[in-house]
């Protein structure tokens, strides 16, 4: 279990903040601490970041280190790889995961492969941030949740901050990683408010976190659906169903120990993820649980994912397409039987 899950100790000073501000503080801290670090992407500078994450950083760090790029995803992601090879610590922002497909060749064939192809000579200490997820009626081309799909690629680490602590702390750890790290920020979390330890800083990015302990089943999720899973657990508690909620935090590599350990205890699991169902991350989790805990299971591992459809614009259809508290509760009740 990770430090980010620790209970607030009494007497500690905390600050009111948002997910967006926590991300910004993390970037600011990294820029101040290490002059090899710079932020590069479309509209990170004078616009302030398409979701205002980097607002104000241009004024503090100037256009060299808060570097606006033209619309050229493949070139500036690849340039981030090259700059990392040459000793810098780039943070490349791709506005949203939907556009990252244009840079996928650079991510898979260079960032993830250079170390191996070169026999260990060229590691790529690159961090790529992007917004992911649906839920804001942005329709088919702006609503993908592909982080679980990216987790198929060897040679990169995938993290998905779901809490203020992780929004604040994952970047520093990612920047210390000698290899590429992709950070997926869910678009519906930017305005999430809460309190954060005033001294909050780097967090581990190796372990999943148990966000709520429980006995009767394990809800496994991450990122944008953690809140829904916790709400579902609350609802289930009302019917005396005790659900443990695991926040994966890092989608590659997966923390089998925490996941399997929990399911061995609860003997039931529901995986919740906002990606399309077939071939999504939930399938991998289901397969691992089958391989490592089949005979502990009282019921099949259930998957609550998005409908396999390019996301429609209207709210009622989008809500029907996405995992919801109700659908999680229903799936949990079914596996508990």
């Amino acid at each position: 279990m990770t430090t980010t899950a620790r209970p607030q100790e009494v007497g500690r000073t905390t600050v009111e903040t948002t997910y967006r501000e926590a991300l910004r503080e993390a970037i600011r801290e990294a820029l101040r601490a290490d002059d090899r670090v710079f932020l590069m992407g479309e509209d990170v500078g004078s616009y302030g970041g398409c979701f205002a994450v980097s607002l104000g950083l241009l004024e503090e760090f100037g256009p060299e280190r808060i570097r606006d790029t033209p619309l050229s995803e493949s070139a500036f992601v690849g340039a981030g790889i090259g700059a990392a090879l040459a000793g810098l610590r780039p943070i490349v922002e791709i506005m949203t995961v939907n556009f990252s497909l244009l840079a996928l060749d650079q991510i898979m064939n260079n960032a993830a492969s250079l170390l191996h192809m070169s026999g260990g000579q060229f590691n790529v200490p690159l961090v790529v941030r992007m917004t992911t997820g649906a839920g804001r009626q942005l329709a088919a081309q702006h609503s993908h949740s592909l982080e679980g799909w990216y987790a198929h690629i060897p040679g990169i680490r995938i993290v998905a901050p779901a809490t203020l602590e992780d929004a604040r702390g994952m970047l520093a750890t990612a920047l210390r990683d000698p290899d590429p790290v992709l950070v997926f920020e869910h678009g519906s979390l930017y305005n999430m408010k809460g309190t954060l330890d005033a001294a909050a800083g780097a967090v581990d990015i190796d372990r999943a976190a148990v966000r709520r302990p429980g006995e009767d089943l394990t809800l496994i999720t991450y990122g944008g659906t953690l809140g829904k899973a916790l709400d579902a657990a609350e609802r289930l508690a009302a019917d005396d169903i005790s659900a443990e909620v695991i926040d994966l935090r890092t989608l590659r590599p997966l923390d089998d120990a925490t996941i399997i350990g929990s399911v061995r205890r609860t003997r039931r699991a529901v995986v919740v993820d906002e990606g399309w169902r077939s071939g999504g991350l939930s399938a991998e989790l289901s397969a691992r649980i089958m391989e490592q805990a089949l005979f502990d299971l009282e019921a099949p591992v259930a998957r609550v994912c998005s409908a396999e459809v390019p996301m429609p614009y209207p709210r009622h259809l989008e809500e029907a397409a996405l995992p919801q508290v109700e659908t999680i509760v229903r799936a949990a009740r079914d596996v508990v039987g």
Partner: protein
Amino acid sequence: MSTRRAQEQRRREHLTGLLRTMLLIRRFEEACAELYSAARIRGFVHLYVGEEAVATGITAALGRDDWVVSTYREHGHALARGLPLDAVMAEMFGRQTGVSRGRGGSMHLFDRAHGFVGGNAVVGGGLPLAVGLALADRMQGRDRVTACFFGDGAVAEGEFHECMNLAALWRLPVLFCCENNRYAMGTALAKEHAETDLALRASSYGVAAWPVDGMDVLAVEDAARRGVEDVRGGGGPVFLELRTYRYRAHSMYDPDRYRDKDEISAWKEHDPIDALCARMRQDALLPDGTRERLAEEVACLVDAAVEVAEQAPLEPVEDLTRFVTSEVEPEVVAG
């Protein structure tokens, strides 16, 4: 003498039509801004206010069978192309009566009957479609033209380069309509491109390319007619750099911090609607009150469209996964 009057009459009707189209677009966009602020429509909404002359002038030069490939800032293109106002507005509300059954929303307007192939929200993503539509027409011996709209920012994408080369190499009937409004979101032209003369860049592919005053609907229409004629005649693609400006923020989501207000007001001095009216008055083609009458007329239509849209049905939730694959049976091909 009477022929001269007839001509004048035709000219008046034509210019009045252009004016009405621009007024309709502007009113539609203003309505969208209000509706968005009132949270009655959602998603990303990109308005076209200030750029009306471009869509209006280009589409005026197109034929019924021609294709139009557009972007996420396409309300103006759609209305100028003649897509039914009620169905376009219904799409903003995500209604079943929308041009895309409400599944697309503001960024994904489609209408096969008008050869309107979207509504593409990945910058540059429409360009390859335009090349393919034109390729099909060429291979099938149809003399259609494909008009492809995209912005100055799209010119930096690799797909722009690949598509300019392909269209020029194969001499395909594409009219590339680059809406240079000087910004890609908050990024000014000079921060997007090493060479900011976009017509010059396009001509490096061996494509006929020239800049056009995109605030002057007559200049746009004239350029478009010449371009369409070349393209349809088999002369290969033509690139028009339409120099224009968006008065409003990039999207309803954009706080617009990156430009100073003077720049915006300076451009408003060259408002395309005012400019056309001035021109028509000069030529005594705009009787007093006409502009006001037309403005009122389109306002009523837009208000009516909003009302109809809000009453219109939604797609049933059970139909969520319709249109992921086609409902028609696989065709049986001879042989």
